[in-house]
């Protein structure tokens, strides 16, 4: 009997062995391709998911460390047809160039907005300090997070 985790509300029996980084379980077993590999070193934030309300870089956590826990990925917060306010705000602000960093950033931002409905600019920047964007879309991303915060307060 392997480990059990819950991904976006659905139970998953993990086939990978316990040392496997959570990232590969989410991508290849749970089919959550929005959780992206960028460095495998916990440095870029592309693979950020939410566990126990906190943003976690899933490339840097063995799946055994989250056994029994509930994990939320970007696929769990909204979809193309029913986007989360953050996803809608990223579209409204056109806050992407290549977009590879966007899903990890959205999850870091969600973890912030879940505990702080009216973050200051400095608080948003601090919350995103572990996320890298190489295309230079930072300014639009910051605007999108602020827009989403306003929408979510309504």
């Amino acid at each position: 009997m392997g480990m059990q985790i819950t991904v976006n509300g659905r139970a998953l029996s993990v086939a990978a062995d316990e040392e496997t980084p959570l990232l590969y379980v989410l991508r290849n077993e749970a089919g959550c391709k929005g959780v992206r590999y960028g460095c495998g070193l916990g440095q870029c934030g592309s693979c950020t998911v939410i566990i126990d309300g906190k943003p976690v870089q899933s490339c840097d956590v063995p799946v055994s460390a989250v056994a029994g826990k509930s994990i939320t990925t970007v696929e769990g917060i909204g979809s193309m047809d029913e986007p989360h306010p953050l996803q809608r705000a990223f579209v409204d602000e056109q806050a992407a160039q290549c977009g590879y960093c966007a899903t990890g950033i959205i999850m870091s931002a969600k973890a912030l907005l879940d505990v702080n409905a009216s973050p200051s600019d400095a608080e948003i920047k601090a919350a995103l300090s572990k996320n890298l964007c190489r295309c230079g879309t930072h300014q639009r991303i910051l605007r999108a997070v602020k827009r989403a915060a306003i929408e979510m307060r309504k």
Partner: protein
Amino acid sequence: MAIENTVRRNLPGSLETNRNLSQWLDINTDGTVTMRPGKIEIGQGILTALRQIVAEELDVNLERINIVTAVTALSPNEGVTSGSRSIEESGVAFRYAAAEARELLLARAGAKLGVSIEQLSVSDGVITSRSGGSVSYWDITDGDLLKREATGDAKPKSHMLYRIVGTAAPRVDIPRKVSGAPVYVHDMDVPGLLHARVSRPPSYKAELVSVDMDDVRKMPGVVAVVRDGRFLGVIAEREEQAIRAQRRLTRNAKWKEGPTLPEFDPRYLLKLQAKTDVISEKKGAASSGREFSGEYTRQFLAHASLAPSCAVAKFEGGKFTVWTHSQGIYPLRAEMAPALGVPAEDIVIHHVEGAGCYGHNAADDVALDAALLARGALGRTVRLQWMRDEEFAWEPYSSAMVVKTRATLSDAGQITDWQMDVWSHGHSSRPGRGPGSNLLAAWHLEKPLVRAQTANPPLPGGGSHRNAIPIYDFPNEKVSNHLIPDPPLRASALRGLGSQTNVFAIESFMDELALAAGVDPIAFRLRHLKDPRGRAVIEKVAAMAKWKPNSRGDGANGRGIGFARYKNGAGYMAMIVDIVLAETIRVTHVWAAVDVGQIINSDGLLNQVEGGIIQAVSFALKEEVKYDRERVTLKSWDDYPILSFDEVPEVEVALINRPELPPLGAGEGTQGPISAAVANAVFNAAGIRLHDIPFTRERLITAMA
């Protein structure tokens, strides 16, 4: 002699080399339009802009237009998506192809309705006659409509009638991307997919002494361990198993290395044999006055894409199918064929998006790697993703450069003589730029292919000499390019090519000369610049930033300007930056004025320019490829820091639209002006002149000493 029949007409943009209308467009009976660009999306929004152009010329709504992403054998061959040329090449081709398609449809409609085409107007594909009666594109189209060579005679719409081009049409790809949908080649998955990794040598010229592969073959999930010369790879059932097997294989390999890399200073270039070309020489009135000189350098720079490169490949029945994020699928196919020992026709390459690449990264290399490994996978599909350290250590970088300047300044404060010398390796080693191969694995095979030397795209765009010829008007001028084709580190195209360093040198030196002349830097530039569009962006940015002539910084705060016309033929960009000098340099604000002729998508343009500016600040302040005498020593983001969220400046961009003029590329013109503006702002703040990029804390301390 019937000369008329043998003369090939010149056609606009990429129509010249892909001459049939049906290569570009289908008008479908189901009320849709299919377009097939040969250019590819790299996060620059090009597919959205091309769709706007087609919708505009055809008079159909954007939603009707489907885009088929590039695939060999089906899409037009538009070479490489690079150089900010996609609007000029693909955009112009689509504009003329769609205009001609519209004319053909109007001719059919006129015949059907029994009226002349002057009587007809089009709204979302419905053609209506002034005398009544209407028919739609979808009713009168058929498979034969566009099966003909383009004439180039159909006149595109006047810009006065535009309703789609120039607007901020939202990007077609963003909703899917932010939803987490599997949009990148990295996300491809099929039943039975295998995962592969490559085990690279520790340095460029390392020789493989021995490797224990049996040990790795016994590991859980391992399907195959492949060795071809010093190309080593593993294939496994699961991704984590492939990664573990790759780590073991790397540990099991013994290599012989030596010191093959130069000193960690771009000035090593000055000691190497170079091929020298005088690329500009003007001799006017004799010059006299005070003489000045300068020397500017930049280290090797990495693309550092957020996602390491990835490809998926399948080998079945002697034929390869490859999915990759290459910027040029046709040149890649031609380059892969000799490395795989098959004719190019036996390889099909599909473009699938990757992360932003900003130039030639490992997107081509990984395609060959995946194909080589797929040969050992018994017909199963193989996904190969490079690891972070592998991407940092093996991608081709932008060449280090050295620029020396000399000028004579007359007593009247006028530059009367300008000389500039540029030392660099070539700025392109893309596939198809041989002789020799430009694919990494090809050099490592048992029967290796010769490594191609680097080259430069020719002027006027140029490579290492891009923007080396000043746009200012000097009576005497000599610019020489010293090219060293064989680089000690891999080198190829990165956003802006040589323009970053050349504009950094020119615009820094202009400020130094303005100071010597006792003239405000902006007034000094305008004094030497006739080009009205150049003057307009400088004046615009000065107004935006409320530039005060001759104002000096206070030791900590400073302000500087940089200006260029990208490639001396593309977009005009003038930028002013504010900096704060403390332990390090912090760029707090950037103003930019931009003229790229006719604007296709105003928000796409803003996004490109804003992003280019922030990336250029990162280039200028932080980025350099570190190496010792044996190895490139980049392994992680710790070794190659980039600008973070709490370090980005506020950016304000003003667009000067010139709808009556041709559209010009925009994506790369920001890199040069920013580097110079930052250096000029540091001088303005504290009187410290920075000559060496990046402007790290160490270099700041050196410059202060």
